């Protein structure tokens, strides 16, 4: 068992009993901290640096070729605890995007209601296509309820493009062409 060491407590000296030297020390401390530079960030003009894994507003991203990644699987809609996501699935326009015809599905509508979203990040976690990301937007406001619902266009605007290592659908296509589709 560890030995408890009892520290001897010295009786206060007369000067300490008057508190005055301590008060002077305290005054010195506060005065020096007054002369130091403040740590305030002048918020609207200066912004804090947001770490990479920050969970901000959920957004939809495109792949480096500028193509839509979401395949409208609706997993995020199912997993979203407060039911903030509403997706209307649709087919890919094969005439407009022949190189993506084999993906078959894309969202027609994709709404995230930011009044419901709790920024849990489950949508990002569950997405098989890495199409939805919670990025660095942390202050979101609007004048009406409608304004607070991010539609597909807005979500892509906010999301932009993230680097993609997989190019899953391109690989799929070339594999198919090589005759070993699964």
């Amino acid at each position, binding site marked *: 068992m560890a030995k408890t060491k009892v520290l001897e407590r010295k009786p206060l000296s007369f000067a300490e009993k008057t508190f*005055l030297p301590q008060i002077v020390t*305290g005054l010195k401390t*506060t005065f020096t*901290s007054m002369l130091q530079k*403040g740590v305030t960030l002048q918020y609207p003009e200066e912004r804090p640096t947001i770490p990479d894994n920050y969970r901000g507003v959920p957004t939809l991203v495109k792949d480096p070729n500028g193509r839509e990644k979401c395949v409208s699987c609706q997993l995020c809609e199912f997993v979203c605890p407060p039911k903030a996501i509403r997706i209307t699935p649709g087919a890919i326009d094969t005439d407009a995007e022949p190189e993506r015809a084999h993906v078959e599905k894309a969202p027609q509508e994709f709404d995230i209601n930011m009044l419901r979203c709790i920024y849990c990040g489950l949508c990002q976690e569950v997405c098989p296509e890495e199409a939805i990301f919670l990025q660095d937007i942390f202050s979101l406001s609007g004048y009406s309820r409608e304004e607070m619902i991010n539609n597909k266009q807005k979500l892509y605007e906010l999301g932009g493009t993230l680097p993609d290592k997989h190019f899953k659908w391109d690989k799929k296509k070339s594999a198919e062409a090589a005759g070993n589709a699964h």
Partner: protein
Amino acid sequence: MEFLDASLPYIMPIVYAVLMISVFMGLCSYSVLAERKVSSWIQGRVGPNRTRVPLVGHIPILGNVMTGLGLFQPVADGLKFLFKEEIVPGHVNKGYYYLAPIIALAPALTTMVVLPFGRYVDADGITQPLVLANVDLGMLIILGISSLGVYGIVLAGWSSNSKYPFLGGVRASAQMISYELAMGLALLPVFMWAASPGYYDSEGLFVEGSRYGMSLFGVVQSQQAAWTILWQPLSALLFLVALFAETNRLPFDMAESETDLVGGFHTEYGCFKFGLFFVAEYAHIIMGSGIFVLLFLGGWNFLPWVADPWGDGIFGSVLSVAWFMAKVFFMIFFFIWMRWTLPRFRYDQVMSLGWKILLPLAVGNLVLNTIIIALYDTLTR
């Protein structure tokens, strides 16, 4: 014209009084700003730095500096208090509820009448104080009237009809009574020293007692060489501690103590009535600082053992006022500085400090000084 000449003696005092009130109120609002700024600097923040008045605030560079220092903030603060919705809780005792803030502020504004703030040399070559009413017993008036301010707090606490304000009011009254004694006793040695032993009148005869009676002006004039604080440090310390307690400032802000009493006596007050309490607190601080400067820091005298470098003319008077104000500003700063240095005392500690330490010390100090003065007078006569 004749009518004007005849009415001038009546009009001028009013003009002076209005002038002084406006300066004093300006000081109050800017000490609120000083409090906010100094507090934030001590805490590593920036403080109010956004309020900008059109035109003045848009002068290049200077406007930005003034905005950054928050110099327009008091205007915004005042307007906010004026235009806020006035909510009177249903359970208050209306009459006293409205009366309380007025009673809190009025004494603080009344005492400034007898506060000398500079000196001038009149036509006969006699130095005279710059003061609204040059009363012989100025200090007694200040002590008497300023402690009436506690009625405002007690009334506010009582008429609010809710328990936290009530506790605040009770604490304030007990605290004021305890520290008033020590304060008065700490003052006596100063006046005794300032008055003794006597002076030679214009015919060269020795007159006992002070030329100025018990006036504050006399105390300041007696400090032309050594400031009182240098040879009466104990009196100064006692007075300063009592002053902090009387002005309800941290570490003695028992009446407010927002951590255990919500907001203390002004919990139920909002908008301009709260603003009045706020101004009253700062008015008390300014008055307290002014008195401390007059009694212990040499008033408008330049430095200990250094004669005033300014002359006797108008220029000299203006500089004496400026120098006095500079010292007052330092004291106001000291009040704020102290606030962020010391934590609040526990209530029983406040009481035991007042009765068991300050009061005996003050009595001892008084007796000691009396003996010294008596010895000094017998030996030098």
